[in-house]
């Protein structure tokens, strides 16, 4: 299951949907909005998605994880809209019989989500500037930042 959500969600409920009598454990990852990025003090941020394709690609990634790892259930939700510091931006949960597979699948899902799902992040800075953030992989490959204003 992959879903875009536009409000804060009940994490207990998400977790409960992964329980299973054959599961020996559960691993989750929460991505939070932090107050700084690349030397700038961040006030808040906005996530924008291409909903149809984001849901399609996000669902595909979760299915890939189910195929690649010995897990029982997996799910991911990603926020859209305006988020304040400390708010949950993304959540991944995986249940499995043994912990290794759950850790690996959780890592796989969050890593793939970040580079493949059409979601974009605009940061608003304390300085009054704002800018769209390039993905980590693109930055690593030395591509130019799309907005020079916050560098």
């Amino acid at each position, binding site marked *: 299951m992959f879903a875009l959500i536009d409000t804060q969600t009940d994490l207990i409920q998400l977790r409960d949907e992964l329980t299973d009598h054959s599961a020996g454990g559960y691993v989750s990852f929460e991505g939070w909005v932090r107050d700084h990025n690349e030397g700038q003090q961040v006030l808040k941020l906005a996530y924008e998605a291409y909903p149809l394709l*984001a849901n399609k690609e996000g669902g595909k990634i979760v299915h890939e994880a189910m195929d690649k790892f010995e897990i029982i259930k997996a799910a991911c939700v990603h926020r859209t809209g305006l988020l304040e510091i400390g708010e949950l931006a993304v959540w991944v949960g995986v249940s499995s019989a043994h912990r290794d597979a759950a850790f690996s699948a959780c890592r796989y899902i969050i890593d793939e989500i970040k580079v493949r799902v059409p*979601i*974009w*992040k605009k940061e608003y800075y304390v300085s009054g500037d704002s800018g769209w953030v390039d993905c980590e992989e693109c930055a690593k490959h030395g591509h130019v930042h*799309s907005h020079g204003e916050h560098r």
Partner: protein
Amino acid sequence: MKLTIEYYAQLRDEAGCGSEATETSCLNPAELFAELNARYSFSLKQAQLRVAINDSFAHWDSPLNEGDLVVFMPPMAGG
């Protein structure tokens, strides 16, 4: 042929709109992006973008057809 084009994130800011209808003779998304880039001078190069046709990822040389929805996407930045 008539196409609908959508932009996201910085591409939308630079085009000044999220969506537009266009009449073009471009055969594929690469030609279409070059045509639009001449109009908007996007800050991102084609090599940095992904393209979708009718809500599925497409190749830059995929054929375009009458009525297609073409979406240009900046580098993903979720998570």
